[in-house]
């Protein structure tokens, strides 16, 4: 086999921003390792459900497929609701009709996300629970859930009170965009759980 030296740009390994973020995340992970979470994670690895998940090769990928499909359903529903708030979709329907169509998909989607996520944690408790990115994700998820609850309730109430003349306030429009950004950030964390050093 012929071997040849190849010139490779080295921008990939020398990104200061990523170095700083990695260092920060790793310091949190180091601290997590000193807490009871480590023992708890090890205890989970010995449960029969965890053993079942790891000894069957396809269990984790299948849990992830459910996770992704449910994210698609919930994020798609959030997107359509956001577009209606902005008057960019389903303008032939009232906000209440659009909420009736999509809001259940957000919450049932979230239920499947949580259940499949719990299975994935059970399969790989150390990689998940002794991991700064996982806890950042959980924190942002919690914020997103409560912000969604408050936002959907408030926008439905205002739309019902204003009738057909309802148009979203700029605050409501901003909040709806923020929720989309939070969902995207949660996806970012979800992928990076697998890549940050633990």
């Amino acid at each position, binding site marked *: 086999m012929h071997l040849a030296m190849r010139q490779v740009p080295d921008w990939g390994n020398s990104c200061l921003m990523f170095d700083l973020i990695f260092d920060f995340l790793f310091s949190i992970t180091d601290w997590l390792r000193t807490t009871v979470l480590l023992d708890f994670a090890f205890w989970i690895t010995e449960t029969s459900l965890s053993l079942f998940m790891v000894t069957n090769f396809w269990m984790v990928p*299948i849990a992830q*497929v459910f996770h992704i499909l449910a994210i*698609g359903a919930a*994020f*798609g529903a959030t997107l359509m609701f956001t577009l209606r708030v902005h008057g960019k979709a389903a303008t032939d329907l009232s906000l209440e009709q659009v909420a009736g169509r999509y809001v259940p998909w957000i919450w049932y989607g979230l239920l499947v996300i949580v259940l499949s996520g719990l299975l994935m944690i059970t399969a790989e408790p150390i990689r998940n629970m002794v991991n700064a990115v996982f806890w950042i994700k959980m924190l942002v998820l919690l914020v997103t859930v409560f912000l969604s609850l408050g936002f959907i309730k408030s926008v439905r109430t205002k739309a019902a009170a204003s009738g057909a003349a309802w148009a979203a306030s700029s605050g409501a429009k901003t909040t709806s965009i923020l929720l989309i950004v939070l969902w995207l950030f949660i996806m970012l964390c979800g992928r990076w759980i697998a890549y940050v050093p633990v």
Partner: protein
Amino acid sequence: MIYPEPTNIWESIQYSPMGLSIAESLWAFPMIETVHVMALVTVIGTILVMDLRMLGKASTNQAVTQVSADTLKWTWLGFVVAAITGTLLFISKASSYMINPYFLTKMGLFVVVGLNMLYFHFVTYKTVDQWDSSASPPQAVKTAAIISLLIWIVIVFCGRAIGFTLGIYY
């Protein structure tokens, strides 16, 4: 780093400066993959909305053409971003992908789902005036939606399977 001299087109792609940059970077592959996930959930989420309307299972108070107008641009935007990011992921490990059965199945399913879409658009959709507002569209419409949903689910499965099997085939 020293790399073997490419012996076929896939290795040439993989050992190109761009392929190597993505493969060697600590953050490029995960970051591109993250954008891939964001794009594909947009595709899945909006296709689900359209397919459920075609099945008469949701949004029946809206015309099929209206739901299509609301969702299709997002489906395409998501698909284009997923295709670009997917190509970037591919070139970083091209020869591993090309011998992975799940990758090859996934590419084949894109052809099938594309043909299903073309047939629906150019044949079934011709008569949309007759069933646009129908709460329960004709069987041909429902069949197209079922095929679409099933294949997209299998495409997601193949995508995940690739991540778990890349490198175990030689």
